[in-house]
């Protein structure tokens, strides 16, 4: 028997039940657990950021790598109040612009390759699939054709929203709208499923904890 493990389990059990008590209605126990969660999360992240960024940067600066001072100063510039009228207050735009430019420079090739180039390639090739014996793969073929129909009609929907003078575009756009709604619905369902799995995990934890403690 490990007393520390047991204390940990009991604490986790009580806190889990306290959070679940919020299902019924907010109560003091729920609010304590909520505040504790926020506090612990903030503390945890502070520690992680300190050891991942601040400490290595400090060590580099102490060991003579003064280049680290540039991001440090740039970071401090971000703290200049936005309502300041002083001439130097414009300096806060420098690090902000740098962040935007670097992020864009990194993301554009990734977005272009992943979402445009690769999506077009994998949507079209192969439109008709065959297995190793040369027989038609109906499932894969339907999937590929459906993908092309979905993509085309979804694009048509975006076009039809602005120009509704063509009946064909409008009808295809309506089909596209349907597919977009199906996609959004599926994403929501998957999110719900994920939260349910987490909920089930907590129920399992409660059951095991009750067995261990009592």
């Amino acid at each position: 028997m490990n007393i520390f493990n047991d204390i940990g389990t009991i604490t986790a059990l009580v806190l889990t039940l306290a959070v679940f008590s919020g299902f019924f209605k907010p109560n003091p126990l729920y609010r304590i657990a909520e505040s504790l969660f926020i506090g612990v999360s903030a503390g945890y992240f502070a520690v992680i950021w300190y050891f991942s960024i601040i400490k290595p940067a400090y060590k580099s600066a102490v060991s003579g790598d003064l280049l680290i001072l540039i991001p440090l100063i740039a970071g401090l510039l971000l703290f200049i109040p936005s309502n300041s009228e002083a001439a130097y207050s414009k300096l806060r735009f420098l690090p902000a612009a740098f962040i935007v430019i670097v992020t864009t420079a990194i993301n554009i090739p990734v977005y272009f390759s992943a979402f445009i180039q690769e999506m077009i390639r994998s949507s079209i090739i192969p439109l008709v699939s065959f297995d190793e014996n040369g027989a038609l793969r109906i499932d894969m073929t339907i999937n590929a054709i459906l993908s092309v129909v979905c993509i085309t009609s979804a694009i048509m929907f975006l076009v039809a929203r602005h120009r509704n003078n063509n009946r064909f575009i409008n009808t295809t756009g309506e089909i596209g709208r349907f597919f977009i709604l199906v996609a959004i619905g599926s994403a929501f369902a998957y999110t719900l499923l994920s939260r349910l799995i987490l909920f089930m995990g907590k129920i399992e934890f409660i059951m095991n904890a009750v067995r261990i403690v009592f």
Partner: protein
Amino acid sequence: MRNFFDNISASIAKIPQWGLIFPILVLMLFHYFVVFDRNKNEEKYKLSAAPTETEMKVFQIINTLPHNSKVLILVNYGPESKYELESAMSALIGVLAEKNIGIAFATMIPNGVESAFTAVEKSIENGSFGKERFVYGHEYTHLGFIVGGNIATYLIANNFDQVKERDIFDSSTDIHQPLMSEIGTISDFSAVFEFSSQTFDGVPGIVSFAVMQKDKNVKKVAFCSSDMLSAYIPFRGSLYLDGLIGGFKSIAVFIHEFQPSLNIEKQYNIMSTILFYIIWLVIFSNLIKLTRKNKK
């Protein structure tokens, strides 16, 4: 007849909507302790899902990894997806350890730091690879939290020698870790696995890695949680992803294949049952809304 329906409608309207969660809880617990436990004794319940082609690809990649090679595992999930992804990661660690494959962990989100260690502990506790010890620095290592999202991915893909300089405990990997001293660039790994519950600027981490990485021989496999499935599925047949295990169903199939002792069938079957109840919950809550509107 009309009165009869009016009475039913009035009775339904009286039920508070939040009260519907309790029948679900009761049914879930009933299934958990009565139905599935009884079935377990009779060895009746089995995984009702067969591996798909995509899942088979992942099995093949894992089975063909050379003995004594090295793999990189990117841990991009936190407690919010622990229940889904931790068991899968623990199963994967078990398989890799059995083949004496060295594992380097790295995480790109702050709350993923602890997840790698808990998965290793879980793997040892399960006795999945017949070892009581899994030696840090020799058999696995943790490179810690790599800051920067897509920029971190770029570093991992192209400047791995910088990333691997120091581990999570701030000790030099070249001096203290035989495992990492054999690794210079990302090409020294046989495969990269990502366990993910979030994307970076909308792009899955492994896809971003694949776009930036020059060596296309390194296999890339993603494990994602259910809520990330819609972000990963478009890349399923692409050049950027060699294999995908996405969502609880795929994870259940994967664990069933590689770590049967984890008893995932029970959780999978309960999950399917709960989903069935949820559908009824949605139907009933909408019915309550409708009858309340009619009453007004």
